């Protein structure tokens, strides 16, 4: 097949190829539509419609001048939509527009070839936006399609077009795979990006913010995205201990909690100090991109990964914003006692906004009268949430200027942020230092993948109070709400008697069980992809070099890559050179046929053709006539005919399996 001379390439493309190319570009670009401005998409749609009409009526294709105008209009459209022509969004919009315009200028085969090659660029661009496994598979298929189109455009394979062209394209792509893998493993990764493509813009990612006001977390709860995955080295802790610590909020302005402007004291007195009462547990987290420096860890982290630190609030912070999925290992102490903070911090944790109402002070005074210690007062507060008719709902009523007061005494239904916020305020009124911690609560076990998944919908807020002699103690007022008052409309479930409520889908029915396992399976695949492909970093490369004993060598990676590439190229070259002497399957089968006959005392003469040889064998050994003529009937047309069918090779191979002629003497 490969030795066939290429057909003369006529210059005018045929309509089928133009249609195939247009559909290929459309299918390849389709996933990108999610990220493009609607104006760009509208313009692209217009161009495609013109292109498709142009297949039927050539008049519909605009002439050169109109194309110039369309090009200008397309550029202006890109400028108007993105205010720039460079960067990730601007550049992509401009490229896609120009590619679609090129579809209106397919006058020669060269144009078609060029556009098919540009489709490869269109594929690569999309990985700036999305690197997920399904998209990779989809775009891989598109790449094979582009190769098939190029095969066809470069002469093609004659009559049996589609199937054999696709087969050639797949085999070409598979042949490229070893080199791709070598480059994937060895191509130097940059630890920091050299150029800014605006990749760190927070487009489309909804994540936790560093402040809290009513409604902030309930927005997250309806977000179905994954926050991070966890793999514990040993048995995971009980679910009511899975408080994943995030930002800590100190300052309340009456409505909104924020981290506050507390500066780190210079004397180091407030560096995190922790007393552990049990062995810390170790685990690994793969955090989805947040574009923040926060790393989540279980209360309380004791060791930080290399490129992160633990701050005064026991929050784990990365040095670089997490713009792509990040994998890190942490150890946390579940049973701990923090050191006493300095007086100034203590003061910070007692600050009150100016909208504290007498009702609130009255409530606290009432508790104080019944409590003999700070801890007893905390218990009073929790008992209050449990006793009074507080409802837990995803759809809390709107609150006015004084949300804490309104929530405590009027609406009495809300979400974790309402509980945490008002509880922390009440504690401060009582003179107990309190602060808010944002993070996630709980985890979903993925039995298929053997890890835990934490979703954005697991977002949570809780309170830490400073108790003399015990340090900062975690208190979750949401957990105190009576389970009977949980809003059924939101379809809730309980994690356990002492656990706070969480919202999630009803998981009782068989269908939802099935959907759930599918989701778990999908997530497992995704995690594997993340683990083995996306996370492959410079660090992994150096680890690989170390294992190969090249770790100290400065240019080890580059040398290895050059070696791998030249090795691959020489293998290809050798294969190409060997090709002339490598028997084709048919030749190999014929050689085997001759070997079998030679073993039976009927060697082929060196200059004897297969037909002559076969007939001589049949004359000398009439008992072999049937087998030999059956072989020749298949072999001759396949070897010398114009369109050998691959099925023939299988048939011949099958025939030869049963072809073991005995030598004449033994026979006689």
């Amino acid at each position, binding site marked *: 097949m490969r*030795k066939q001379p290429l057909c003369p390439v006529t210059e005018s493309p045929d309509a089928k190829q133009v249609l195939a190319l247009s559909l290929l570009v459309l299918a390849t670009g389709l996933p990108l539509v999610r990220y493009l401005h609607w104006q760009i998409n509208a313009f692209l749609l217009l161009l495609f419609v013109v292109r498709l009409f142009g297949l039927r009526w050539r008049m519909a294709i605009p002439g050169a001048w109109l194309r110039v105008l369309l090009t200008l209009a397309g550029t202006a459209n890109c400028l108007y939509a993105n205010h720039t022509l460079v960067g990730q969004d601007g550049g992509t919009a401009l490229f896609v527009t120009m590619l679609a315009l090129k579809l209106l200028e397919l006058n020669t085969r060269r144009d078609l070839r060029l556009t098919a090659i540009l489709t490869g660029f269109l594929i690569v661009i999309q990985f700036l936006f999305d690197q997920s496994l399904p998209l990779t598979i989809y775009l891989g298929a598109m790449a094979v399609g582009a190769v098939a189109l190029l095969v066809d455009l470069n002469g093609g394979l004659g009559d049996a077009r589609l199937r054999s062209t696709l087969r050639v394209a797949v085999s070409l792509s598979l042949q490229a795979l070893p080199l791709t893998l070598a480059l994937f493993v060895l191509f130097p990764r940059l630890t920091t990006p050299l150029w800014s493509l605006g990749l760190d813009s927070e487009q489309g990612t909804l994540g936790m913010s560093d402040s809290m006001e009513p409604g902030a977390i309930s927005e997250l709860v309806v977000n179905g995205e994954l926050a991070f995955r966890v793999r514990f080295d040993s048995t995971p802790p009980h679910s009511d201990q899975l408080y994943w610590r995030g930002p800590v909020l100190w300052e309340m302005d009456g409505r909104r909690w924020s981290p506050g402007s507390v500066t780190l004291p210079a004397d180091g007195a407030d560096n995190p100090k922790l007393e552990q009462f049990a062995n810390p547990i170790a685990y690994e987290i793969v955090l989805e991109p947040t574009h923040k420096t926060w790393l989540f860890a279980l209360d309380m982290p004791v060791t930080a990964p290399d490129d992160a630190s633990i701050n005064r609030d026991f929050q784990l912070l990365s040095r670089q914003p997490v713009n792509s999925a990040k994998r890190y290992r942490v150890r946390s102490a579940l049973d701990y006692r923090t050191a006493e903070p300095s007086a100034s911090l203590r003061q910070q944790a007692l600050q009150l906004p100016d909208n504290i109402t007498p009702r609130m002070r009255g409530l606290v005074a009432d508790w104080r009268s019944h409590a003999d210690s700070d801890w007893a007062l905390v218990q009073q507060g929790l008992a209050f949430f449990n006793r009074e008719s507080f409802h837990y709902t995803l759809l809390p009523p709107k609150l006015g200027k004084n949300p804490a007061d309104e929530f405590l005494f009027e609406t009495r239904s809300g979400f974790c942020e309402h509980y945490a916020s008002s509880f922390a305020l009440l504690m401060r009124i009582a003179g107990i230092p309190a602060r808010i911690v944002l993070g996630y609560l709980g985890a979903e076990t993925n039995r298929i993948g053997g890890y835990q998944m934490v979703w954005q919908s697991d977002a949570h807020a809780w309170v830490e109070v400073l108790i003399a002699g015990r340090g900062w103690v975690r208190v979750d007022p949401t957990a105190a709400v009576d389970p009977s008052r949980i809003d059924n409309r939101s379809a809730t479930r309980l994690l356990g008697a002492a656990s706070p409520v969480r919202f999630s889908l009803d998981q009782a029915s068989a269908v939802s069980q099935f959907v759930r396992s599918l989701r778990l399976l999908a997530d497992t695949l995704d995690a594997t992809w993340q683990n083995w492909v996306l996370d492959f970093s410079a660090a992994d490369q150096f680890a690989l070099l170390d294992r190969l004993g090249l770790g100290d060598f400065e240019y080890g990676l580059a040398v290895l890559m050059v070696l791998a590439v030249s090795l691959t190229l020489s293998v290809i070259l050798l294969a190409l050179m060997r090709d002339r002497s490598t028997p084709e399957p048919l*030749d190999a089968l*014929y*050689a085997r046929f001759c070997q079998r006959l030679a073993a039976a005392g009927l060697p082929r003469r*060196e*200059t*004897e*053709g*297969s*037909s*002559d040889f076969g007939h001589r064998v049949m004359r000398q050994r009439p008992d072999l006539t049937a087998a030999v003529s059956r072989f020749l009937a298949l072999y*001759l*047309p396949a*070897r*010398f*005919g*114009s*369109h050998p069918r691959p099925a023939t090779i299988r048939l011949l191979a099958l025939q030869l399996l049963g072809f073991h002629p005995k030598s004449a003497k033994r026979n006689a």
Partner: protein
Amino acid sequence: MKPISLNQISPPNRSLPDTILDSARAVILGKDRELRLALACLLARGHLLIEDLPGVGKTTLAHLLARLLGLDYARIQFTSDLLPADVIGVSVYDRAAESFRFHPGPIFSQLVLADEINRATPKAQSALLEAMEERQVTVEGETRPLPEPFFVIGTQNPLFQVGTFPLPESQLDRFLMRIRLGYPDAEQEKRLLAGEDRRIMVARQAPALTNAQLLTLQQQVTEIHAAHPIIDYVHAILQFTRSSDRFVYGLSPRAGLGILRAAKAWALLADRNYVLPEDVQAVLPACAVHRLVGGEAGQRIGEDEIATFILKHVPLSV
């Protein structure tokens, strides 16, 4: 796989070339292989040279082919005083029209029998041979195409006979095949002696083909598939004749093309639409030997052994 559509022009089960061969076999006895080669040569659009002693049926064969293929036929008896104009034709002044008028010579026929071609002088020979290659003649500045199809069957006596001008290699190259008839074997010769006059038998033959059918067959020959191993094999043969020290010079690319074309015609006669190595081997003696004769170095090998010599030294793996 595209089958050759012979059925539309012949009765089923018997291909058109086979019916021609059957008729020919009835007239020329015991020369099946030579008849087949001659027919293959004509189907491959090649010219045929028949070399043998007088009286073995060269002229009869040429005449018979002309009859069976339905071609109009002219015979030129080459003698030492033959002039080019006798072959091509001559312009004569027409007094009534007050202009020269061209009287076409015998070459303006579909099948020209050039009898005893090596008896004429080189000048007359070359007039014919140029026409063979170009399929047109130029007389007094005017180019006239020859009819289509156009075949030349040349006959020549063995070179050791007195009064012959041997054809130069360059001109021998223009004949696709050279065959020898030889004496018939005893049984066939007795049948020949007992049978009726061959000339009458030839005259009685009805054409088996129309010109259109002949052109279709010629077209089908070009459509026969020669797979890569066949091309490789023919090329190996050419290479061998060029590198072997037995020959001063090897076979030309034109010879290679001719061998392949003849092998395709041979495959067509076997009712196959692809060429086998055996087809090449079958036509090689007729196609190659006359182009190599005389170009041998060192010890001479007999003409008959040349083809065997080549085939024995070019290995075949398919």
